[in-house]
Structures are given as structure tokens and as C-alpha cells.
């Protein structure tokens, strides 16, 4: 489950390029010449710490710089990697600089996704730093400043990392395991930090792109190929403006839109008929089911048999900073500043789009304004680069909020059908689980199920879809934990007792017990209060485990839930940065609450009906539950796992189960609604 290539396959969004630009003759010739070089430089080579030089630099002043292809989007790698290096080097966090996401400077650490920075990149940084520490010792140098001038180090830089250098065990940590603030916090609170949309280049112009009226429409004609106050760029389906201000560029695009003719596609699917559509278009032949025992026979012979269907809506990541890029050409060299989780892949996309060698492209990713799995692609980078090529000057392009809602990829919608049975001993005798469209993350059940069929069926997604925090595990965990509650009720058992009796995962058991004890589950599950109920859910994904107990209140008029209290327990091995971890768990709970309460992309006829925050209500201050408790179980003996995703998966099913306890009605859709 933790194979890097497998994670890549799940996380990278594979789709045809949005644009096919016409190569101009000069660039075409150059790309041919450069193409010969590609063989020699082997682009896309993965960083495996073969050389210390690639990972760690010691300045003559003794300051240490850590280099990584990971990026900072608020999830905390900057603090974590600095602390990891400081730990091994015997320095303070403030002695370390961290350079992230600049393809000209850093090793390719792959995409920043899949909770992989902690288990994948932190060990590489620690090993490089431990090597430098050993060099300091073996050289007999008194400081890194002295070492930086030592010839031994230069030699080691070139030869790569020696084997057999060990990192500090968790029991001896003095920096790791302690709370660390984000190193550039001060620049954030003063406005000094330059996010991608804040990058300023000499002579920079501003761009805006003409968008089709419906998804998939192609540009047939532009009636007015020029507009006042802005310059029009047309290249196949790409039509855009650049101007001295973003206001003028937007006005230019509005004028273009009035005279644009489009060839539109039919769009039979809508948010009204979505789940039928996903079922009807399911590709049965692409399923790779997990089969155990004989599920059909077990269903047929079981004493209690249940069947239910669950739905999860399309939702958007809606990061506060929309996609943005600044592109600059110098002769045939392209530099792009942009917010993406995948700098090396965006470099590749740019090289392809402009038929140039990757060595001619530099992608720089300043710490950017949120991603949540939604910025794995380079749309704005490519568009800005196309405009900059036409302008002959740097061009800034920032998507509007409506563009971000409409044209960014969404979290896949899910239809999940489950059939199951319990036997007389209250075991889960049969388990048949089918996910339509959304994916296979956390699709396996952690409960003992000797007779099971578990499968994911891809279908025809009417919306552009891709990664979202925790991928399909939000939908799969929702359906599984809600249906497990239904089985518990059928077995006449308390939901906690039923889970503990059937769980085959001791780590989940530990967080479930911790959350239930803190919440006072045993007493509170027996209480009845009008319109109020308690519920719980648990799960695992990406080598971490989570459990949540909640109390909700259901509005008797609207049927809408309100979260009154949550106790969530989380365990991800040895904790590296408890402050960062707590922030991730808090953020996950509340982001998951948004999908539970209200978030849903509404669409029909190839258009989004709610591409704005007033129609798509994300969580706000008022949604924060009055009581919110987070239990972090620190397993010092275990390898640290990532934590930015899994804590999101428990809140929605726990709330659905609490709504049942409050009303006696099952809630089987996200957002949660009594039907």
C-alpha cells in the first residue's frame, strides 16, 4: 500500500493536455537540437540521496540549507524538514534554511501528495544531515563553518552518501517531537511573503483567459479579434488577453466573449441524475475486485441481511489562493512561478506544451495558498507561459474564483452500494462493497470479513475529477462506517461493541477505545435527548489510524445537522511536530465537516450552477463545534507516517451515525440530509 509508484498512479491526474499550441518554426528547430540532450540528462530522475550535494548545503558562514522538491502549501514540510535536519546536525531549527520546489535547485522528490513527505522525504533529509554530522566528527572540525572549508567534505559531496550512518532514535530526540512553528510565519503576518500570485517581474503584464460557456466546448470563431485596451492572443482553442492591468485584461476577455462562437457538446448528466449516470456508465471490465470466501453463499444463508446505497457529491478544494502563475521567457528559456504540488511534472507539461527540452524550463514554487490535493496540475503555468511568449514580457495570470470552481478538477462523486450480513454470533458473515467512480483508497474494510467482494468500478465522470485530501477514502469510509452501524443495529449491538468485536486492526482499536473513553461513549450512547444523538466512526489510510465520537443536533424543520462536540483520536507513529500535527487534525476535521454539512457542486447542461462562495458554503467560524478535543497517540517506537489526510475521514460517518441515533433515520448521502 505504501509503494511510491502506486501512490503516484493514484495521485497524478492523467488527462489529455488542455491545449495544443502551434510551434513556431524557430522553437521547433531548437527543440530538435535540444532533444538530443534529453538522452544524456535523463529527465525525471528520482532523488534517492545519491549525493549529499543534492540535499544539503553548508555555507561558509556555517548556515545549513536543506533542498527538497516538496512544496509548502500550509501542511508544514518547511518546519518538519528543518527540524529533521536540526535534529541530526545537532543544530537549532533557526540555523537551517529550507529551499523547496525550485526545479533548478532541488532534487526531484516527486509530487507533494499522499502524505508522503513524512515517511518518504524526512528520512532522506535525516540521512543526509546525519552524514554531515558524521563528517563533522570524522574531520575533527569544531563547527559546520569550519567543516564547510574542509576538503574532506567536498570529497564526500561528490561521492554520495556512505552506508551505515544511523539517524538518532526517537528516544534521543531533542528537536523532533517538539512543537515547531512555521519558519516563515513572520513574513505571512506582515504581508511580506510572496505567494505565487504576488510575484512581480520587471515589465510584467497581466493576463486573463477566455473560458467556454460549457465544459468541453471548443472555440469556433471570434467575431472581434481585437479589443480596446488589451492584446488578444489566439492559438487554437486558446484565446486570452494581456494588458498592463488585470482589470483591462478581464475587460478584454469580456469583450471577446461577446463575439465568441462555440461548438458545444451535449451534457446529459447533471447533479440531479448523477448517481444513475455513474451506475449506468460503470466499466465492469475494469474492476479488479478483492474476493474472499463466497459472498453470495454467505449472503444467502445469513440470518440478517442488509443492503444500502451511499452517495457522495462532487466537491471542490477551493483553496484560498486560486491557481496563479507568472511566466517569463528569456530567449528560449522559460521560468514560471506557480502554485503546484507537482513542480517537476509541471516542468514536463510546460516542456511538452512548448516543444522545448525540460532543461530549458525552470519551475519555482513559492509557498502557496492551499491545495488539499487540488493543485497537482499546471494549467495556469501553461496559460501564463503562452501569454508571455506572445507578449515578449513576463505575464501574470491568476484564475478567478469562478474559474477555480468551474475549471479546476473536483473530488470525484461516489455511488457506493453495500450488501452485508451478520450471523447469529454477531460476526460480519458477508460483505459486498462496490464503489462507483470515486476510487479505491481505504476501500478495504478493517473488520473481519471472511466472505467478501470489494471493488471499484470507474465510470464516465461528467466533471473533471482528481485528487482531493484523502482521495476516495472519504467516500469509502463514509459508506463503510455508516453501513457497519446498520449491521450493528441489525445485530442488536452497540456500535462501539460491534466494532470492537469485529475489528481486525489493533491500531484502530486503540484510537477507537481512546476516543470512546474520552467522550464517555458507554454512558452517552444510552441517553436520549430530543433531536440529539451520538455517533462514532473509525478508519485507516496511509499508515495512520483515526476514530471520532460526535454529538450532533438535528434541526427538526430542515433536517440539517449541527456538530456540537467531537473527540477525535489519531495515531501516525512517532510524532515529529505535535503543533503541526494538531493543526492538520483540526483542519481535517473542519474541512471534513464542510463536506458533511453543505458542500456540493450543482451542475446541469455542462455548467456549474454554484461557482461562488455564496452558493457553495465552505466551513466558517460559526460551524466550529463548541467542544472539540483531539487526542494524539504518540507511538515513539513506530515510523512516522503522514497526517494531512486521514484525520478527515471519520467526521462525516460519525455524524451520519449520530443523526440516526437522534432521529431513527439513516442518512446515506454527503452532504448529510435526512430524506
Amino acid at each position, binding site marked *: 500500500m505504501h509503494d511510491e509508484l502506486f501512490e503516484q498512479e493514484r495521485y497524478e491526474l492523467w488527462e489529455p493536455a488542455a491545449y495544443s499550441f502551434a510551434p513556431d518554426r524557430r522553437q521547433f528547430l531548437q527543440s530538435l537540437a535540444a532533444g538530443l540532450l534529453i538522452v544524456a540528462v535523463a529527465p525525471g530522475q528520482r532523488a534517492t540521496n545519491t549525493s549529499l550535494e543534492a540535499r544539503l548545503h553548508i555555507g561558509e558562514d556555517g548556515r545549513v540549507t536543506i533542498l527538497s522538491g516538496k512544496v509548502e*502549501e*500550509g*501542511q*508544514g514540510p518547511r518546519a518538519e524538514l528543518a527540524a529533521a535536519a536540526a535534529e541530526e546536525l545537532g543544530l537549532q531549527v533557526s540555523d537551517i534554511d529550507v529551499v523547496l520546489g525550485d526545479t533548478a535547485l532541488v532534487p526531484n522528490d516527486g509530487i507533494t501528495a499522499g502524505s508522503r513527505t513524512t515517511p518518504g522525504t524526512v528520512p532522506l533529509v535525516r540521512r543526509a544531515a546525519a552524514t554531515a554530522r558524521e563528517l563533522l566528527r570524522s574531520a575533527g572540525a569544531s563547527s559546520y563553518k569550519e567543516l564547510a572549508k574542509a576538503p574532506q567534505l567536498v570529497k564526500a559531496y561528490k561521492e554520495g552518501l556512505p552506508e551505515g550512518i544511523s539517524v538518532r532514535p526517537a528516544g534521543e530526540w531533542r528537536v523532533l517531537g517538539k*512543537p515547531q*512553528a*512555521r519558519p516563515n*510565519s*513572520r513574513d*505571512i*503576518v*506582515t*504581508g*511580506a*511573503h*510572496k*505567494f505565487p*500570485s*504576488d510575484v*512581480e517581474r520587471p515589465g510584467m503584464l*497581466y493576463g486573463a483567459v477566455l473560458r467556454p460557456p460549457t465544459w468541453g466546448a471548443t472555440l469556433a470563431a471570434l467575431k472581434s479579434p481585437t479589443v480596446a485596451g488589451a492584446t488578444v492572443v489566439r492559438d487554437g482553442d486558446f484565446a486570452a488577453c494581456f494588458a498592463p*492591468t*488585470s*482589470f483591462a485584461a478581464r475587460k478584454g476577455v469580456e469583450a471577446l466573449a461577446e463575439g465568441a462562437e462555440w461548438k458545444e457538446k451535449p451534457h446529459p448528466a447533471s447533479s440531479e441524475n448523477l448517481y444513475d449516470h455513474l451506475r449506468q456508465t460503470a466499466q465492469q471490465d475494469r474492476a479488479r475486485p478483492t474476493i474472499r470466501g463466497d459472498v453470495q453463499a454467505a449472503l444467502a444463508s445469513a440470518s440478517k441481511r442488509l443492503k444500502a446505497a451511499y452517495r457522495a457529491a462532487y466537491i471542490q*478544494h*477551493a*483553496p*484560498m*489562493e*486560486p491557481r496563479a502563475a507568472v511566466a517569463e521567457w528569456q530567449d528560449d528559456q522559460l521560468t514560471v512561478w506557480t502554485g503546484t504540488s507537482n513542480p517537476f511534472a509541471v516542468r514536463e507539461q510546460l516542456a511538452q506544451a512548448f516543444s522545448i527540452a525540460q532543461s530549458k524550463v525552470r519551475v519555482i514554487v513559492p*509557498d*502557496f*495558498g*492551499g491545495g*488539499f490535493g487540488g493543485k497537482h496540475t499546471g494549467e495556469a503555468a501553461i496559460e501564463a507561459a503562452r501569454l508571455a511568449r506572445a507578449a515578449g514580457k513576463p505575464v501574470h495570470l*491568476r484564475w*478567478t*474564483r469562478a474559474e477555480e470552481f468551474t475549471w479546476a478538477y473536483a473530488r470525484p462523486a461516489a455511488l457506493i452500494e453495500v450488501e452485508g450480513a451478520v450471523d447469529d454470533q454477531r460476526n460480519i458473515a458477508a460483505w459486498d462493497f462496490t464503489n462507483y467512480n470515486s476510487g479505491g483508497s481505504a476501500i478495504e474494510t478493517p473488520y473481519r470479513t471472511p466472505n467478501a467482494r470489494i471493488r471499484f468500478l470507474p465510470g464516465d465522470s461528467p466533471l473533471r475529477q482528481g485528487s482531493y485530501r484523502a482521495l476516495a477514502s472519504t467516500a469509502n469510509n463514509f459508506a463503510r462506517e455508516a453501513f457497519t452501524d446498520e449491521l450493528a443495529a441489525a445485530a442488536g449491538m452497540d456500535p462501539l461493541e460491534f466494532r470492537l468485536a469485529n475489528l481486525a486492526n489493533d491500531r484502530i482499536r486503540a484510537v477507537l477505545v481512546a476516543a470512546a473513553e474520552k467522550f464517555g461513549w458507554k454512558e452517552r450512547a444510552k441517553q436520549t435527548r430530543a433531536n440529539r444523538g451520538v455517533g462514532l466512526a473509525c478508519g485507516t489510510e496511509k499508515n495512520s489510524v483515526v476514530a471520532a465520537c460526535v454529538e450532533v443536533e438535528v434541526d427538526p424543520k430542515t433536517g440539517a445537522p449541527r456538530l456540537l462536540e467531537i473527540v477525535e483520536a489519531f495515531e501516525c507513529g512517532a510524532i515529529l511536530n505535535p*503543533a503541526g500535527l494538531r*493543526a492538520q487534525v*483540526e*483542519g*481535517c*476535521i*473542519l*474541512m471534513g*465537516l*464542510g463536506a458533511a454539512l453543505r458542500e456540493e457542486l450543482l451542475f446541469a447542461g455542462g455548467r456549474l450552477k454554484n461557482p*461562488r*462562495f*455564496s452558493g457553495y458554503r*465552505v*466551513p*466558517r*467560524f*460559526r460551524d*466550529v463545534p463548541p467542544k*472539540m478535543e483531539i487526542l494524539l497517540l504518540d507511538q515513539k517506537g513506530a515510523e512516522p507516517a503522514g497526517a494531512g489526510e486521514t484525520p478527515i475521514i471519520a467526521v462525516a460517518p460519525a455524524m451520519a451515525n449520530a443523526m440516526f441515533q437522534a432521529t431513527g433515520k439513516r442518512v446515506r448521502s454527503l452532504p448529510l440530509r435526512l430524506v
Partner: protein
Amino acid sequence: MPQFRFQVNRRAAVVDTSPERPLLDVLREDLKLTGTKYGCGEGQCRACTVLLDGKPIVSCVTPVRAAAGKAITTIEGLAEDARLQPVQQAFVDEGALQCGYCTPGMVLRTAALLKANPSPSEEQIVAALDGSLCRCCGYPRIVAAVRAAASRAS
């Protein structure tokens, strides 16, 4: 192009521009004050908050003409003499930022709140900040930072 004069961060500013241009764009593109963020362009997320004569406004839907003759404070102008204001320090100390893109707006809203009400209740904090969106959902820490700033200032 019409000319507009106003104060930005205690200094006089003069811009020649279309009167309907959003104040946000003028601050960012003409005056290079990029600490003020675009979040939605419709006044619904408050990332673009600045103080106009001390009152928080959403600069993305405020035409530049509406700022003529007034005093604007952006996030760059909050700290005087390079020393962080208590509100800014509290956001740092409480770890009340993840990606940090909403932070300038949150800090300015908090500064305005504490000026009007130096010791707000939790309900008053939530009421003042509720329309300010944070997609990292760091709301509990932001509330903690507001409380810390209030207790520090008092």
C-alpha cells in the same frame, strides 16, 4: 485617466486609473502592496480586507474612487517601526496560520475588532470574523490568537 489621491499606510498616494477598478487591484498592481489578497472578487471571503479610515472593508468590490481622500491601512502598514503588532505576534505565537493566504485579512479584521472592543467575548470574536474564510480551517487557532492578542493588549 482620472487621478485619485489617498493615504496608504500613512503615506500619500496618487494614482491615475479607471475609477471603477477595484481598490484591491490598485493596491496590488499599481502600489505593489501584494499583502492584500484576491480570494473571490465578490466580497464573500474577505481575504482582500483592508482598513478604510480604520474600518475593515472588502477591497475586491470597492472601486478605487470610493477610497479617494481616505486613509487606507494594508497588512504592510500594520506594524510600525518593523515591530510586530500584538495581533501579528499572537498569530505567530499561536500558530494561527497554515497556508497563510487568509492571514492578512484575518489580522486586519482582528486589529479593527480589538480597537473597537479590546476584550471581546468568544461570541463577539466569531461574529466579527465569521465571514472571513480559511480553507485550511484553522479557525480554532485563529480564535485563540485573537484572545491572546486581546489579553496582551490589555
